[in-house]
């Protein structure tokens, strides 16, 4: 009985942490996964699975900052695993931006953005992960290294090669 009593507050604390982490980070993690996978449904599945794993591993994590790093790493790993079975990702159908100043301007911006995203998707998975985590996630080099499970040097290398390849691709399309 004593053990049961001790477990109840702990379970409540875990549920409360889960709820807080969901409210704070779920949407951004789904968007991060969508940039790696290009499929909202699969991205949601991946992020939901990451939250489930995080909840079950809470005894080891215990800390909301560590939990976010754990979630990011799990999302990247799960997305990588999903990508093994996928083709090169598709483009989303461009939608007008709500604050576009004019139709022409909006169309031009969207075309450029689509070209950038398409070029990103042609990169090898690790380079894409490094660029998405840096330029969408705004993570530091060591945070990216943790999320990808590689060294800081490898992050630098992936990001550098990825950026160079993207520059070449975008220039060749002009």
């Amino acid at each position, binding site marked *: 009985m004593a053990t049961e009593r001790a477990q109840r507050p702990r379970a409540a604390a875990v549920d409360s942490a*889960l*709820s807080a982490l*969901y409210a704070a980070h*779920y*949407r*951004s993690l*789904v*968007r*991060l996964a*969508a*940039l790696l996978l290009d*499929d*909202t*449904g699969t*991205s*949601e*599945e*991946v*992020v*939901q*699975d990451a*939250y*489930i794993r995080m*909840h*079950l591993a809470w005894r080891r994590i215990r800390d909301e900052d560590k939990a976010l790093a754990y979630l990011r790493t799990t999302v990247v790993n799960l997305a990588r695993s999903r*990508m*093994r*079975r*996928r*083709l*090169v*990702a*598709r*483009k*989303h*159908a461009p*939608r007008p*931006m709500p604050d576009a100043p004019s139709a022409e301007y909006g169309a031009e911006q969207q075309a*450029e*953005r689509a070209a*950038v*995203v*398409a070029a*990103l*998707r*042609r990169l*090898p*998975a690790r380079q894409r992960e490094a*660029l*998405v985590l840096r*330029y*969408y996630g705004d993570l530091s080099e060591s945070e990216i290294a943790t999320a990808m499970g590689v060294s800081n040097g490898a992050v630098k290398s992936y990001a550098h090669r990825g*950026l160079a390849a*993207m*520059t070449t691709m*975008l220039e060749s399309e002009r």
Partner: protein
Amino acid sequence: MSTESKLRQALHEHATQVEPSPDGYRRITDGIAVRRRRVMWQRTAMSLAAVVALVAGGVAVNGRLTAAPSRLIVPPANGSPTPSPDSGAPTVAPATDSRLATLWPLTHEAEVDAWRADPQRAPALRDAKSATQAFVNRVLPDPTSVVVAACAPADCDAAARDGVAAFQLSAPRSLPVAQRQPVATIELRRFGADGPWLVTAARGSQGLTITSPRGEATITSPLDVNGRVDGVHQSIRLDVDEVSIQPARSLGSVTGVAAGMEMPWHASVTFTDAATGSGLVLATMRSDRDGSLASATAVAVDFQSTRGEPSPFAPTYPPAPTTFVAVTDGRVAVFSTSTGRPARYLTYAQPGGGAYDAQLSADSKSVVYAQGAGTCASAIWQVPADGGKPVQLVDAGHGAASHPVLSPDGSKLAYAIARCAQGGTGVDVVVRDLAAGTERVAAHLVDVDLRGTIGWRADAARLVFVASHGDSAPDLVIADATGGAGTVTAAPETGCTWRSATWRPVTDVIVAAEMCRSNGPGGQQSALVQFNSAERVDARIITLDQIAIQALDYDAGGTNLLYWNGGASVTGPIWAWDGNPRREAQ
């Protein structure tokens, strides 16, 4: 603007278009509950074994205790399926026909003829609902349950005209219809236009299944029974019943506790000789609170005493495959179906992306696979199934190649390719003549992603696959392999989306997997449906709760259908069956 600035801006703008669905938190908590149950089961399996031994120690058979007490055994904590022991295992009766594989109450054609000729014939068997109610009254008595149609009235009428019917046993009857839970689905067939309605299957809800003995097996006492259950702590009662037009009579029973997430259970039950030749093995779960029926599953069997005159209608089953091919850690491997582990690796890990989408050829002599992890430098290779040097069939550099599959005669290769030169937005399904080295595009698909596998028709004239279009529902596409004609698509059942499809070997039948919303655990289930040659949904074969079928393929013998369960929060072994719902083997 630098590439870095463009990239940052594009990623943030692109990401704002992604809006998650609002039920994410519920799905997470559901997933946590499922995982918790599994963990709880693994931790308590051994202690449950002790409880089970006590509960199941004394078993009354015809009013007396058996000399050798029956027992219900939970599997070991590692969760590996419990194999059926050799001693006392049921033997499958020799058989020639499956026209009359029924659960209740007539099991031989002679009995059907006698029923037709009898002026006092049982009135309940004239219509499907009365037959269901009679079956429930005699085999599954439960005052809290109610028999309801399992389909819309118009659909029920149409099905009844075709001689098939299904009813659901729902409980508790005190609640409004929408709040009742399904207990079991009871399926019936009518034998002849004026024939009786006979119960052909009773499938339990809540993941309660019997995996052996299989339908139409000839059994002897003591009988070893294997099944699966989904639940933390479930009391299961197992009955061996004599079944006839007369009230059912239990010949032996055993009770015990089993638990787990899709976990196997095993029981041994002793029973007395049956007066008649046929019966059923019935597994039921009842509520601990009020004893009401929660789930019930039954399998039709023949008793040993009739071995001299076996039912001429029992089907025979082909052996389950002993191996299958899959990719693990980027390497193609031959797996053992009994252990679920790689028996041997066919390829080495390669830099630049591992292998994926491995497919065994129809003659089971070689495996084709893609290599390159979806990058623009993907290639397609072939390796002998018993080991050897891989040979490149499609060279790298054209795009992201995937889903390779050889035609039944091995002369052609179908695969999908997203051509990087075209920006990777379109996918071509290509057919390559391996002898001539020529290629033609069977289908050009814009803005799609292929799901599952590509399937060849036996004559290599057509292909079937599932194409997913962004957020819209995926299509099941049937394409002309010569590229001459257009493609045909078929719609899934309401509330379902296509996941994978393949052609049944040597036939003109397509088997496709759907993912459907469900009221059961996990909120979703996979269903397998068959198509006839006119591309019309013909019949649902089986539904599998909490299973997310991602790919389908037949084994080399063309008799066992393999599926890959790739659910996000549920993982499981690869299972096989021959299209008959009562045939299920790992």
